[in-house]
């Protein structure tokens, strides 16, 4: 009987998986990466060494990609349709921020990086308006 069952059993597994969200979300993750981008551009302006510039561009693009990833996770996993009542322009905020990340990737203009930081701060305000730290972070031990 066991052999018969083994003979019939499928050999391939398919998945119908769902997210397994940890429930921890904070725009600060994206902001830290965006701050790195800002600082790297600042340092590039003060150093004309071509090797340094090449490395800086590479790292800047990596950091920008991470910022985009954290924004995507926040958008897709934290925010829900009901949050649109409190933040009606939510989709526009994320859409514009994602576009700005793409711009920053290709730019060495400090103003572009600053604009991205400002956009993330707007998203931070939306996060706070819909629950923020109290809802999505693990509380620190108080002294």
């Amino acid at each position, binding site marked *: 009987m066991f052999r018969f069952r083994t003979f*019939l*059993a*499928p050999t*391939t*597994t*398919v*998945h*119908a*998986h*769902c*997210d*397994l*969200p940890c*429930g921890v979300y904070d725009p600060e993750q994206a902001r830290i990466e965006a701050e790195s981008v800002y600082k790297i551009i600042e340092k590039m302006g003060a150093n004309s060494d071509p090797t340094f510039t090449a490395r800086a561009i590479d790292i800047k693009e990596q950091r920008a990609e991470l910022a985009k990833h954290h924004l995507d996770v926040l958008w*897709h*996993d934290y925010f829900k*349709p009901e949050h649109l009542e409190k933040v009606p322009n939510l*989709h526009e905020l994320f859409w514009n921020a994602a576009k700005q990340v793409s711009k920053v990737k290709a730019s060495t203009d400090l103003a572009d990086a600053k604009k991205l930081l400002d956009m993330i701060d707007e998203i931070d305000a939306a996060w706070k308006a819909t629950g923020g730290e109290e809802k999505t972070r693990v509380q620190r031990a108080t002294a």
Partner: protein
Amino acid sequence: MAPTIQPGDWLLIDPTTARWPRRGSIVVFREPDSDLLAIKRLAAGPGDRVDLDEGHLVLGADEAWLLSDATDAALLAAGAGAGRPIDSRRYGPVPVDALVGRVWFRYGPLNRIGRIGRPPAILDR
């Protein structure tokens, strides 16, 4: 995909399908983001219009919109932490190149043997 497909179900698929089958069919395909073998229901096929929260999109000649059957109740039953289903609402339209086959029969477990049904609600979403 609960309640239609349950974890551990033994399924037969038709791998000769070269085009997206009709709406309501359950298909196995390579998930765009991960290349994982995934199973979803075909909610809209080539040329169909898909309504989104803001606006709509029209699927290309080789694209399908694949959705999970999982209801809120099924997700709740799966336990705390089972999040939203990962389907076309996450990765968008799926090209026919990713299609592996159409699921047509369940041959195990014994008490669930039979053709795969098509719930009426899926096409209303």
